[in-house]
């Protein structure tokens, strides 16, 4: 369900930090990209590539040093529009604990709603709907410190979903979670995208990257390649040259392909490898 009008536009954006005594540290150079409604985009890059700065430009936490960031037609440099921008584009940060401010689950979700002046009568249903989407139904009265890492992060997501944004940015949102927690979050993200919410995930976990419609690869503040996950993973040498890796499934496929050419090396997840193996063990032909 993609329309032509981009939800988020970065037009020739550059960004530098001012570090001690007016020294400039350039982090992003002339980046232009679009995020369309309903898209699922992954942004990957080595540490220090500029990807974490990028996510904070999307909702105006940082303003570009040059160029413009336009959300829903609104420029992030316009301080009058920042609240509207942030209601449209929510961010889930890395540390689950440090996004929760209230003493109960439902009060925390309510915080965002109160900020954007949702009428009290509407709140309960929006809160419960959000909790349902993240799988925390019935935990309204729980205290945050009684939740697991994955649950805390899902609560943080619920707090944003309740505000009904058009796009949610996941800024390394699974880095501090264990494998189970990570799986929970990826499940929620899939559910959200199916509901039409655009997702931008800044991550280094390949298992998340394969879920996306489009992958953007950042290195030294520039976009060096983008495309579908399959297209991007085909460029193994390029990725490895900047310190990134491909999914394990891809490595396996490549290894098998080396020994047996007909086996496709262009597979990106375990499911596809299994299917490919099935093809060969039942005498079928690979795609």
């Amino acid at each position, binding site marked *: 369900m993609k329309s032509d009008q981009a939800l988020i536009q970065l037009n020739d954006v550059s960004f530098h930090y001012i570090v001690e005594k007016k020294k400039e540290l350039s982090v992003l150079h002339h980046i232009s990209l679009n995020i369309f409604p309903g898209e699922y985009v992954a942004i990957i890059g080595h540490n220090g590539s500029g990807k974490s700065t990028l996510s*904070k430009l999307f*909702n105006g*936490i940082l303003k570009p040093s040059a160029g413009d960031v336009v959300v829903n037609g609104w420029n992030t440099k316009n301080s009058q529009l920042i*609240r509207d921008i*942030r*209601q449209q584009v*929510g*961010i889930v*940060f890395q*540390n689950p*604990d*440090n*996004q*929760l*401010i*209230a*003493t*109960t689950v*439902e*009060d925390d979700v*309510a*915080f*965002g*709603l*109160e*900020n*954007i*002046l*949702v*009428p*009290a009568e509407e*709140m*309960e249903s929006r*809160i419960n709907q959000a909790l349902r989407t993240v799988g925390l139904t019935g935990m309204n009265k729980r*205290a*945050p*410190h*009684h939740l697991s890492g994955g649950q805390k992060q899902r609560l*943080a997501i619920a*707090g*944003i979903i309740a*505000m009904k944004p058009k796009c949610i940015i996941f800024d390394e949102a699974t880095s501090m979670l264990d494998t189970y927690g990570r799986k929970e979050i990826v499940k929620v993200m899939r559910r959200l995208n199916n509901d039409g919410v655009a997702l931008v995930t800044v991550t280094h976990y390949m298992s998340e990257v394969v879920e996306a419609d489009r992958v953007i690869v950042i290195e030294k503040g520039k976009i060096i390649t983008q495309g579908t996950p399959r297209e991007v993973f085909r460029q193994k040498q390029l990725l490895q040259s900047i310190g990134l890796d491909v999914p394990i499934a891809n490595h396996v496929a490549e290894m098998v392909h080396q020994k047996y050419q007909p086996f496709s090396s262009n597979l990106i997840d375990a499911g596809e490898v299994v299917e490919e193996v099935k093809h060969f063990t039942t005498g079928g032909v690979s795609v």
Partner: protein
Amino acid sequence: MTSRFELTRNITIGQYIPTGSVIHQFEASLKLLSFAILVVGIAICSSYTGNLILLAFSIALFGIARIPIHYGISGIKPALPFMIILSLMQLLFYGQAAQGETTLFQFGFILITTSSVQLVIVSAMRFIEIILVSSVLTLSTSTTEMTHGLEHLLKPLKYIKFPVYEFSLIITIAIRFVPTFAMEMEKLMKAQASRGAEFGTGKWWQIVRKTKDTFPLIIPLFSSAMERAEDLILAMESRCYTPGLKRTSYRQYKIALRDFLLLIITTLFSIFIVFYKFTY
């Protein structure tokens, strides 16, 4: 040493025991106000009879709230040694300050009069009453209720530009993070090798050494707090929070007639207790 590690995730600002009693059902803001008025009454009332009534009332509160009295007693038990010492001190040294009426005993600088005896007994009773009453308050009101109650209580201050919501937000954040920091502390403490005794020379040097010994715990605790603060700021602003701006409220403020009655009765009771001329 085991008590050091009892900072479990169950650390809260006082426990909450939901029994559904009538006291639990009062709206927190007026409950708090009534409590404050009662405490003022307790603090001022200096007669024997008045305090006996207050003591009986404090104990009765546990019954009304359907909270077992042992919760109140466990609040008083640790205080007993201090109470005894304090009473002794007041008895021995306050004869001078509160001279009046019959002298019961005199030896050197020690002067014990009926007034000093009254001061000691009444102080002790007051102390017990305050502990009991505040126990009932914290045991019958959840921290969330209390924070919201405080916020509603302070609402009128909005007219003198007092940032009511911001203030209650600070309290909420503080309460929310106590267990989190407690767990963090517990982890840090467990990771600490046990320390041998430090034998420094000289008292002042010891003070410095002992202080520095705490650094491996204290400094990370504060640093972590600052880091969390930075994250929280981003998270709150990203959810469109701006201090001072108009906002709606999830929790509805419902005062019933009985809440007003509680306030009125408590006020009348306190006034009576303080001003009625009891014979004792």
